[in-house]
């Protein structure tokens, strides 16, 4: 589904990603861990098409197409979804208007009819239940005045409505209380299918008890320093990142 090869990306002349390799197949869950500032969010943003980063080398292939050639909206319509580490507030645009616009743009691209108000409401009510969100959040401006945890939950709600093929969740667990963490993880699990894939960026092994990854990768200084199964997360928890830095072992899955 996704193949990243030797990806180099920089911002303001600083190279942040320095040769990332990663391969994600349909049906898989990949976890990306790594110290602060190692480039995890940069990788996520480059995949979503944020143009403040310039890619100097490498390729990203998504469903056989050159992902880097595509505009952010084309990527989204093609099934790529990024849950932001810091969701953006959009004053004056209600959550439901925003989602309806997004969903219909995606549906139009896929040759489906736009949903009318009734069908749309039915759909979002159902998806809200999945993340246990209150109706009032529909009528509030996107993320404006939401608490940290509410913003994260709203990202998963967006994901539940838009049904992406490749979801990248950037620290969606940070800032969630224990109950919310379980609800969000349950939501992600319920949305899992054979034909979609998830990349979860996280600092905490705890999340991976709920969303069980097929692979864990450790990103250090803009490179995947180590990859392994779900045990790797436990090992990291115990030994810390220095252990990876000291015994680098570049593995590509």
């Amino acid at each position, binding site marked *: 589904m996704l193949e990243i090869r030797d990806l180099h990306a920089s911002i303001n002349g600083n190279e942040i990603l320095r040769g990332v390799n990663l391969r994600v197949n349909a049906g898989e869950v990949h976890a990306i861990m790594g110290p602060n500032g190692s480039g995890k969010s940069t990788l996520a943003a480059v995949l979503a*098409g944020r143009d403040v980063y310039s890619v100097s080398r490498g390729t990203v292939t998504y469903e056989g197409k050159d992902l880097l050639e595509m505009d*952010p909206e084309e990527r989204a319509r093609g099934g790529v979804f990024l849950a932001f580490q810091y969701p*953006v507030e*959009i004053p*004056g*645009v209600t959550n439901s208007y925003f989602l309806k616009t*997004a969903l219909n743009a995606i549906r139009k691209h896929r040759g489906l009819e736009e949903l009318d108000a009734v069908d749309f409401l039915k759909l979002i009510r159902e998806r809200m239940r999945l993340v246990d969100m209150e109706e009032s959040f529909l009528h509030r401006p996107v993320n404006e005045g939401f608490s940290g945890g509410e913003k994260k939950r709203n990202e998963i709600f*967006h994901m539940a409505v838009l049904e992406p093929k490749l979801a990248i969740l950037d620290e969606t667990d940070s800032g969630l209380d224990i109950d919310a963490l379980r609800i969000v993880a349950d939501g992600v699990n319920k949305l899992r299918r054979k034909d979609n894939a998830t990349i979860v960026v996280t600092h905490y092994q705890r999340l991976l008890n709920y969303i069980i990854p097929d692979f864990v990768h450790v990103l250090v200084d803009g490179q995947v320093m180590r990859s392994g199964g779900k045990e790797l997360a436990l090992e990291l928890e115990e030994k810390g990142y220095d252990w990876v830095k000291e015994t680098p072992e570049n593995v590509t899955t």
Partner: protein
Amino acid sequence: MGQQHAWYEKQFESFERSLNGDSRTPVHKLRRSAITHFLSRGFPTTQEEEWRFTNVQPIASRTFIPSIGRPEARLTAGDIDRLAFPAVNRVVFVNGHVVPELSSTRLPQGVFAGSLAVARRNHASVIDRYLGASVRGTESAFTALNTSFLQDGLFVHVPDGVELEEPIVAVFIAAGASGGFAAHPRNLFVLDERASATVTEVYVTFGTSDYLTNAVTEVDLSPGARLEHHKVQSESRDAFHVGFTHVRQKTSSVFHSTSVTLGGSLVRNELISVLSGEWCECTMNGLSVGSGTQLLDNHTTIDHATPNGRSWEVYKAILDGSSKGIFNGKIFVRKDAQKTDAKQTNKTLLLSDSATIDTKPQLEIFADDVKCTHGATVGQLDEQQIFYLRSRGIGVDQARDLLTTAFGLEVIERVKNPSLRSYMERILRQRLHEERVRTAQ
């Protein structure tokens, strides 16, 4: 003024001759002193501080013939619905003169809302008491010109304790194929003690383009009166519009206003409220949308003259092309006006590199125990917000459109009446859509 001077003098003389029996009335005394004032003063120049950024030469160098008497304009109620919107109480004016067959109101007993010219027959005492009262002596050239050719406009009188549910909508239509004329509508709203009303002025154009609207509105709010006021100006982008609104607020009165400016090539709006009694509330919200070479100037004054007044002001502008916005927001807190609470915000969204804004908050505070804040921001659309929308599948043009509309809607959402709110929302969306289509070409 030279040549213009003689021309205006002549226009006034011939207007005066057409008036017959009106020349002995107090109203005509106002006209005579106004024309003297206008002729001695002339149009303002950019040398005057108040007009520094707005050069009125395009108006001053021309001769716009005052529209005397009602012109021919074949309009139907359906046209008015399209030009404005359906309303229970709707008074229609063409070039400043009422069109009775297109106007209708359903009002409680004792309330008047209709033609000032008609009202002069039965409401002379109220009119003579308030008309011109707030501007006499201090008027600008434009206001003096309006008074000189004063004939008709919307007159509203709501007696003690009457609370009107349905808004009163005045639709001012500029019409006439040839252009080159000036409409000088003169409005007067008098709300007696504890009276409450919603009054909306809509300025539109029908099949003409090159003309001047020079409107004056005077408002008097007795103790405890509440007025929700709107001024929506969506005239031709070749029209000139100068508007002056003066509000006098007595004890515990509430003035809540929204001004929406979408049309006009050169627009100057001046809005003044004097809080002359204690415990008054004053809200002034405004939105301007400019493109091409439009010049949109908003001058506001909130004059806290007595203690315990509160005011809120939010003025926004969306400027594209090489349009120019001007905002001057004066807030006076006089020596006696202790415990005043005033908040002013001015935000501008620049959609192109050649659009500009001159913004000047002007707070003059002479009392010591007050709370006054102001803030002004000028910026482009937020790249992070655009990216967030795009990352959800929304195209870049639609993303920009959505954010621009949201910026403008923030002002309109504060309009209390739902049908007026949705009308304003509709014309804002239309205006921005036109813009997008135009830029895309």
